[in-house]
């Protein structure tokens, strides 16, 4: 394992110090490992709290700021944060208008946020929860923990963050969050494994001439292993299962995210192949993001997310956002 770290045990604490040093607009509560906006929550504004295992940067800490999250709880690498961290975040950002927990559908995240919501409610903070489960690689059946939450989370945090910034109440914020979540689908592909620092070696073995299709954001294996293909062929492997699962005709917001180990030039090669496929299928891509937004440490590969969007969602998408990882219009 070759990594720019001091020791595997210190990765998170050291990274939080770096985030604090690089971004004066955010404040890091190092004791509770919560990343907060520099300014306290405006009275009457619904607060958005998200979080999850670290290693997916810039998600979630990179999306804390005006127009997006109020706080993000950072777990250990690929490990969900704990309820006391989330409670500390809720207490820090609740202005009396309540808190929305944005949770990706992983057993650990769901269980810990569930316990945190109980604790916060016990202290008189109103908490609602949206669970993102958008990964079409996973069968959505009663026989699994349900679909994983991936790229739709980023788009949801942006759109719903803008609505909360406008002063909408918690019911309205929750309703939009559920709508965005229901409208999103994702699919990923990995060309290499990632290496979790505390494990010290790649999570899975993947020969040079093979790839893992339908991979998750933690190096958990995907739908199937196939011989390495061209960008053009891979584009279909990402687009087809998504379109098979949703009616994506009409306006959409699309995210093509690298997984941490893929250069931007390859993501653009991929987008050059994906864009015409979507156009042919009648999908109208109104907005697109290409880059590293939800990553998997050093994994090579990418994930594609398509969210059906109406006029209001597009308007909220375009609203100003000022965060370390996403910034426009301000």
């Amino acid at each position, binding site marked *: 394992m070759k990594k720019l770290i001091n020791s595997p045990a210190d990765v998170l604490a050291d990274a939080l110090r770096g985030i604090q040093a690089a971004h004066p607009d955010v404040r890091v509560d190092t004791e509770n490992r919560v990343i907060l906006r520099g300014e306290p929550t405006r009275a009457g504004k619904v607060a958005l709290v998200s979080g999850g*295992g670290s290693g997916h940067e810039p998600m979630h800490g990179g999306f804390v700021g005006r127009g997006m999250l109020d706080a993000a709880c950072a777990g250990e690498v*690929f*490990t*969900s944060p704990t309820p006391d961290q989330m409670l500390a975040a809720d207490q820090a950002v609740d202005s009396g208008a309540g808190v929305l927990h944005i949770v990706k559908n992983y057993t650990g995240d769901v*269980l810990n946020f569930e316990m945190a919501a109980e604790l916060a409610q016990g202290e008189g903070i109103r908490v609602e929860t949206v669970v993102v489960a958008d990964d079409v690689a996973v069968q959505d059946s009663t026989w699994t*923990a349900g679909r994983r939450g991936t790229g739709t989370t980023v788009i949801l945090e942006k759109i719903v963050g803008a609505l909360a910034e406008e002063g909408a109440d918690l019911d309205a914020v929750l309703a939009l969050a559920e709508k965005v979540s229901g409208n999103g689908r994702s699919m990923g592909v990995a060309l290499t494994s990632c290496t979790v620092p505390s*494990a010290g070696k790649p*999570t899975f073995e993947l020969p040079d001439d093979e790839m893992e299709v339908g991979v998750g954001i933690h190096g958990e*294996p995907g739908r199937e292993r196939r011989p390495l293909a061209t960008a053009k062929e891979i584009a279909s492997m990402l687009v087809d299962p998504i379109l098979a699962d949703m009616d994506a005709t009409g306006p959409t917001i699309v995210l093509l995210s690298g997984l941490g180990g893929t250069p931007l030039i390859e993501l653009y090669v991929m987008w050059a192949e994906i864009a015409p496929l979507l156009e042919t299928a009648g999908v109208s891509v109104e907005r697109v993001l290409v880059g590293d937004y939800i990553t998997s440490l050093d994994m090579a590969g990418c994930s594609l997310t398509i969210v059906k969007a109406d006029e209001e969602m597009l308007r909220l998408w375009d609203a100003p956002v000022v965060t370390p990882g996403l910034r426009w219009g301000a």
Partner: protein
Amino acid sequence: MTDVTTADLRAWITRFASLIDEHQTELTELDSAIGDADHGSNMARGMHAVLPKLDGAATPADLGKAIGMTLVSTVGGASGPLYGTFFLRLGGAAGAEDALDAATLGAALRAGVEGVVQRGKAEPGDKTMIDAFTPALQAWDDAVAGGADAVSAAEAAATAAAAGRDATVPLVARKGRASYLGERSAGHLDPGAASATLLLEALRDTLAAS
């Protein structure tokens, strides 16, 4: 031996912590195969945080609360809330009496496991820690019904847990991150069942030595 005391329970947890350390790499490797490669390091981090809290707990109830809260706030993942709930419920059921007979300790273990089932909504056969815990509880109760003391009950429970753990190999996971693999999760030992077995083996080792 006659009854299990708070001191015995402290020794149990200390032994569990050292077994987790010993098997940390193995647990993480099991988790790499079907999960996200963090079970060993998470449990080790949690148990290292638990050790300094043991001496301050005067009763089984205090001990369960201290261990449970520490695990919930340090482990993360699914294991934090699940093991945390186990110890919180176990302590609650064991109460403030410093002398637990085999039946009382069995009931406390059962309360802990019921908490895990409630929190994780898993059933036997889902390829989780429940697959080690369930046969262990049955073996404990059977031993007690046959007149066994806690030492023999723990011996029987540890053996049954190990068998339950090994029986997770062919199962297809239906809970947790391994469930995303579907059929590909078959052929691997479940890391949660492996750590749960270590918990019962630690109890066996401790009671046998006391």
